């Protein structure tokens, strides 16, 4: 349908899962460092709590990437055998599947051990949380770096690396940002600490986009063709830059201002605007990553933009509805346990 192949959706899901898991590991690691840097006060507790909560994003990512990878190793080579005309990229993708296959399998087998230890030895797990996130980041970083294997480390392979790895810094990080934003909703105290991280997170997203563009410039002639898809993606990037900068700059400043001075009405107004800007950001990154996987998309520019606008509207409404029906609170037992340990 619309020129979309089943295996392209599977590859997108691998990319989505790895970028979520990689970003959760990256920011989990950062939060554990921020926590230790603050000593054993409330800031430390909040950042540690945030790091623990990111396990939800991490394991969701592992589940998505792992499930899609298991389907990919069964389905994609079969596609190749039933006479589908393979463009070189497809052959390179299949080569990458076998190239990183053993590492992927090891990652999937080893990851549940973390959950097991957390369940039965929570204090032990917490003490090694930083090491756990560092290991996860290494795994995800390597796995996402090889979406395709050209056979040698040339500009083409470097392009594959930047084109894929940047998702940890962009799509995955935007998902983590949104998760932390929603997580901090129910407590002014949480917001006062977590909002202060937002400018740093936004910088990483901007650097991720630079990484992607630098990769495209490496193989510009081969990578760029003026199609409806290309023009649509450039438009969304323009929207992302304007929205991202407004979100990272003036909006975040207002939100930090409001929560620092406990102006709840003002904070609520800016948070609603922040909600909308955040949803534009996450939907746009999701759209770019998804559309990029569809090589022979038959939709015109206006059709693509219409679908994007429709999805964006629904996403904003769902986000606002979910946001104001959410009730996550930090359990008191966590404070007691943390201070005790």
């Amino acid at each position, binding site marked *: 349908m619309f020129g979309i192949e089943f295996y392209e959706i599977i590859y997108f899901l691998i990319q989505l899962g790895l970028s979520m898991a990689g970003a959760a590991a990256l920011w989990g690691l950062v939060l554990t460092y921020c926590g230790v840097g603050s000593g054993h006060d409330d800031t430390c507790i909040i950042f540690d709590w945030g790091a623990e909560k990111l396990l939800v994003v991490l394991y969701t990512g592992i589940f998505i990437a792992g499930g899609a990878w298991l389907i990919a190793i069964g389905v994609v080579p079969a596609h190749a055998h039933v006479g589908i005309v393979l463009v070189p990229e497809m052959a390179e993708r299949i080569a990458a599947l076998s190239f990183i296959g053993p590492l992927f399998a090891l990652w999937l087998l080893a990851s549940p051990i973390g959950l097991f230890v957390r369940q039965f030895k929570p204090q032990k797990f917490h003490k090694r949380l930083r090491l756990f996130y560092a290991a996860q980041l290494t795994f995800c970083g390597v796995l996402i770096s090889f979406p395709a294997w050209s056979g040698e480390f040339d500009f083409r392979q470097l392009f594959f690396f930047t084109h894929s790895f940047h998702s940890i810094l962009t799509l995955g990080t935007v998902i983590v940002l949104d998760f932390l934003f929603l997580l901090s909703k129910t407590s002014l105290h949480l917001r006062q600490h977590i909002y202060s991280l937002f400018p740093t997170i936004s910088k990483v997203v901007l650097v991720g986009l*630079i990484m992607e563009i630098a990769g495209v410039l490496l193989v510009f002639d081969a990578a760029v063709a003026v199609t409806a898809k290309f023009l649509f993606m450039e438009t969304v990037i323009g929207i992302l830059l304007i929205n991202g900068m407004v979100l990272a700059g003036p909006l975040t400043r207002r939100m930090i201002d409001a929560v620092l001075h406990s102006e709840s009405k003002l904070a609520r107004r800016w948070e609603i605007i922040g909600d909308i800007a955040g949803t534009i950001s996450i939907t746009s990154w999701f759209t770019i990553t998804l559309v990029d996987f569809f090589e022979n998309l038959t939709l015109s520019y206006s059709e693509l933009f219409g679908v994007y606008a429709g999805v964006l509207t629904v996403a904003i409404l769902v986000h606002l509805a979910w946001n104001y029906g959410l009730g996550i609170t930090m359990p008191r037992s966590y404070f007691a346990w943390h201070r005790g340990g």
Partner: protein
Amino acid sequence: MDDKEEHKKHRSPLFRASEIVIITSGALFLVSTYLIWAEGSFTLWFGTVLLYAVGTVLFVMNR
């Protein structure tokens, strides 16, 4: 937590300038997309990418 000090840094002129540069590059991205469609010209696109890179470097270094 030195939130207030952090907040002040946000207000530095260079930081503000970097924000304006990146927002401008976003708007120019849209214009350059139109030019690519209408005339097949990538000149403004390359200029915009350069402007965005400069804006990002300024934005990142201001912390």
